[in-house]
């Protein structure tokens, strides 16, 4: 079952992506800028002087050595002059069989051909292991690459190998204690591990945290998750008020600040800060503001923004009842953070509950379980997906991974899933009994949400055989559902979806009824044909 959105205390915990994706998202620009120095003019002059000399040599010698020198100077200076010479030199390098691989690489890059680089974050498990092996070899060659250590930790995390990820992140933090990519990544990791205080240890130790709004945002968010006292609250406030940083650089800090204000009940200030954060937001900030808008509808997040933010889009589509679009947005969300359980839970839940598609549900649950082995909710959703496909034995063994405590919400869910599996196995009475136990437990725990959900699922299973009582049951469930608050209804909109699907079902009794004409009109075999040559009757057996 999906964790209710109300249960999740969302904060702007940094996204953890590849170095390439983070650079492309402009999240690694410097926080502290260096004033232009006289040295820079000297560098510029030397670069252009050297390029001119290399062009002169190239025009004179026109050989491989001169070509190599020229393309090196062109790559280092990135000067747009002498393009014709540079391109001719690059072509000569590529045409010459004696040119070496480094020169060929540079020549290709100057001619616009890109180097074949391995995918830093493959999504197939086997490819992930191969990529890890390649990186291990790289670490032996050069162990000081803090960014590669961090990115490899992400690969390990995506595979659920958290102990290995932890070691790499510790090494990366030791090598680059002030690097934003390293610190933000380890913040995400430790929050994923439900140990935000470990992230705070590194953040508070770093000298960069106080001056970098991206790190301050991560610190505020992690402190909120850890329920710790906010250490740099004043500094965050000062930076947000100063004009030192661009809207984009402040977006996550403003959103983190706004979230804290919202939780403290200062809706006015929260709205103001969310407005600021949305001036030039990251995908993560749009998701945060969209989450906040579900709590305070006066916080406005336009569809223009959510369209490019998969998590926000998934929630937006869930609220507006566009289930197929929830699935596709959840896929993109999962691609951003493959280790996160949330897109997997949402995708699998919407697939089985709202759409009734066990295959898609299985896909999401299995992908989520790679990094979240042992997750009760994913094992449950996978069991449901398998049962819906008729794979009851596999469903049973999946569900065996879930051991709920007695008299808890988890037990309500577990009993219902066991009921589903029994009913799909043909053991209708045993299944109905389990569903009843689940429903009764929901009543005794005073959980209207799970009562509605269990009843809706049971009604659906009954409707597969007979829809005679479906209208009455639907009315009973919807009576309870309609009494819930608006927020609850949004989180429970699978219930009307399940009932609507049940209504559209062709039940077994309807199928049998449709076959009645054929059964009653079975043509009898002519009696005279039954006499054989010997005159004896032929038994059908």
């Amino acid at each position, binding site marked *: 079952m999906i964790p209710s959105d109300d249960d999740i205390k969302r904060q702007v915990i940094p996204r953890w992506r590849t170095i390439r994706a983070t650079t492309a998202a402009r999240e690694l620009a410097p926080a502290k800028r260096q004033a232009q120095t006289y040295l820079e003019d000297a560098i510029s002059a030397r670069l252009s002087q050297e390029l001119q000399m290399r062009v002169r040599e190239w025009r004179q010698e026109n050989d491989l050595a001169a070509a190599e*020198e020229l393309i090196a100077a062109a790559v*280092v200076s990135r000067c747009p002059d002498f393009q014709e010479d540079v391109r001719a030199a690059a072509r000569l390098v590529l045409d010459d069989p004696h040119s*070496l691989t480094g020169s060929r690489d*540079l020549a290709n890059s100057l001619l616009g051909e890109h180097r074949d680089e391995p995918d830093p974050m493959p999504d197939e498990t086997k490819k992930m292991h191969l990529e890890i092996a390649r990186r291990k070899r790289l670490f032996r060659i*050069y162990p000081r*690459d803090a960014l590669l250590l961090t990115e490899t930790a992400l690969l390990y995390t995506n595979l659920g190998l958290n102990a290995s990820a932890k070691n790499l992140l510790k090494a990366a933090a030791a090598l680059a204690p*002030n690097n934003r990519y390293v610190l933000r990544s380890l913040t995400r990791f430790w929050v994923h591990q439900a140990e935000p205080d470990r992230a705070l240890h590194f953040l508070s130790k770093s000298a960069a945290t106080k001056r970098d709004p991206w790190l301050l945002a991560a610190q505020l968010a992690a402190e909120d998750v850890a329920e710790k006292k906010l250490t740099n609250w004043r500094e965050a406030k000062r930076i947000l008020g100063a004009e030192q940083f661009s809207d984009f650089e402040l977006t996550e800090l403003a959103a983190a600040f706004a979230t804290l204000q919202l939780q403290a009940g200062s809706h006015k200030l929260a709205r103001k800060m969310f407005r600021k954060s949305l001036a030039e937001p990251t995908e993560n900030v749009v998701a945060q503001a969209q989450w906040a808008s579900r709590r305070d509808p006066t916080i406005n997040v336009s569809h223009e923004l959510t369209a490019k933010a998969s998590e926000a889009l998934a929630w937006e589509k869930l609220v507006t009842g566009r289930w197929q679009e929830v699935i596709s947005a959840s896929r993109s969300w999962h691609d951003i953070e493959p280790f996160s359980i949330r897109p997997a839970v949402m995708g699998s839940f919407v697939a089985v509950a709202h759409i009734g598609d066990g295959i898609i549900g299985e896909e999401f649950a299995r992908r989520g379980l790679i990094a979240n082995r042992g997750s009760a909710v994913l094992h449950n959703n996978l069991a449901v997906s398998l049962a819906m496909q008729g794979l009851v034995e596999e469903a049973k063994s999946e569900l065996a991974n879930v051991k709920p405590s007695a008299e808890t919400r988890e037990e309500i869910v577990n009993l219902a899933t066991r009921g589903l599996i029994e009913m799909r196995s043909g053991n209708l009475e045993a299944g109905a009994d389990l569903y009843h136990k689940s429903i009764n437990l929901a009543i005794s725990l005073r959980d209207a949400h799970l009562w509605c959900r269990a009843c809706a699922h049971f009604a659906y299973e009954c409707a597969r055989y007979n829809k005679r009582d479906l209208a009455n049951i639907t009315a009973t469930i919807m009576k309870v559902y309609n009494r819930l608050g608006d927020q609850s209804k949004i989180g429970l909109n699978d219930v009307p979806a399940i009932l609507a699907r049940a209504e559209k079902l062709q039940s077994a009794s309807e199928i049998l009824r449709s076959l009645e004409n054929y059964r009653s009109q079975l043509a009898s075999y002519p009696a005279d044909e039954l006499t054989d040559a010997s005159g004896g009757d032929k038994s059908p057996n």
Partner: protein
Amino acid sequence: MGTKLEGGWTVESPLGWSFDDKGKPARPAGDNGSGGNFSVGYVVKRGDQTAFLKAIDLSRAMKAKPGDMLNELKKIIDTATFEQALCALCGERRMDRVVLALAAGEIVVGPNLQDRVPYIIFELADGDVRRRMRLVNENVRAAWIFSALQNAAVGLRQLHSAKIAHQDVKPSNLLQFEKQNVFKVGDVGRAIQEGVAVPRAEYGIAGDPSYAPPELLYGHYVPDWNTRRVGCDLFMFGSLIAFFFLGQGITPMLMSRIDAAHLPRRAGGEWQGFYADVLPIVQRAFSSVLEELELVAPKKFKDEIVASVRQLCEPDPALRGHPRNRTENQFDLSRYVSQFDLLAKHAAIAGRNA
């Protein structure tokens, strides 16, 4: 041409590095032979002895921007004077792996300033390693490379012992002298001596920026002279090692792997922060270059080659050099001298057995 100089030298022809199929200089090649900004190279002869004359072109000062002529002239004179002094010092210290000055003087052909040409005569090499490398037979190439590197390390160590940082170590400045069977480090025109002020010392980059260490391209100033200047030589020496196997030095290989957002502002990039903040990005690129180097280096020697480049070209200047030297002189090249000597011997044996 034909001008007679003191000491019996005669100017023969302008100098360049064009080669016939035997790797011998084939034709003169214009005014860029010496590679200097204020100088022109010529071949000079005295009996059987051929040498290289570096003529200082004072008239270049006339081409300076209006109002800047005196400054430019001073710069040329200071540079030439410094180079002469440096050459004299190298000679005195008998630096046998540094191209030595055979003579110095002045040609006077008229009464005007531009008619006076100070010059330095150097030993004439058979060519630089950049072009000669490809002429070497495949079987002996590894031994040839390691021998060149060993000689370069010796030359640099000799300079460093006199507190001179070469600052322009690159393939075109490592010259082969076939008769003597040695390689020598040439062109000390951009060298810097500790405690001696020269005009280009104000530049972060004294030598060719295409071979400069990344911290200089980012405008990072290291206050310690050894780390700044000798560390730069070490980077360039490591880059020279990489050149033999990749065809390029480390600097362009690094720059081509760094996103424009993180490239130095004055090199067409957008990075406005400090070098310390961009260092992990440069190290990421460096790791990728090392990966490529490991793939192309000769299998038998790849561990030593990659380790040497890793130690010498470390993007963090504070960590450059042999790790076992950290407690003593971090920038001492002695260990590399021994290592490349050994590798040259091993490669020679392997080449003979091939």
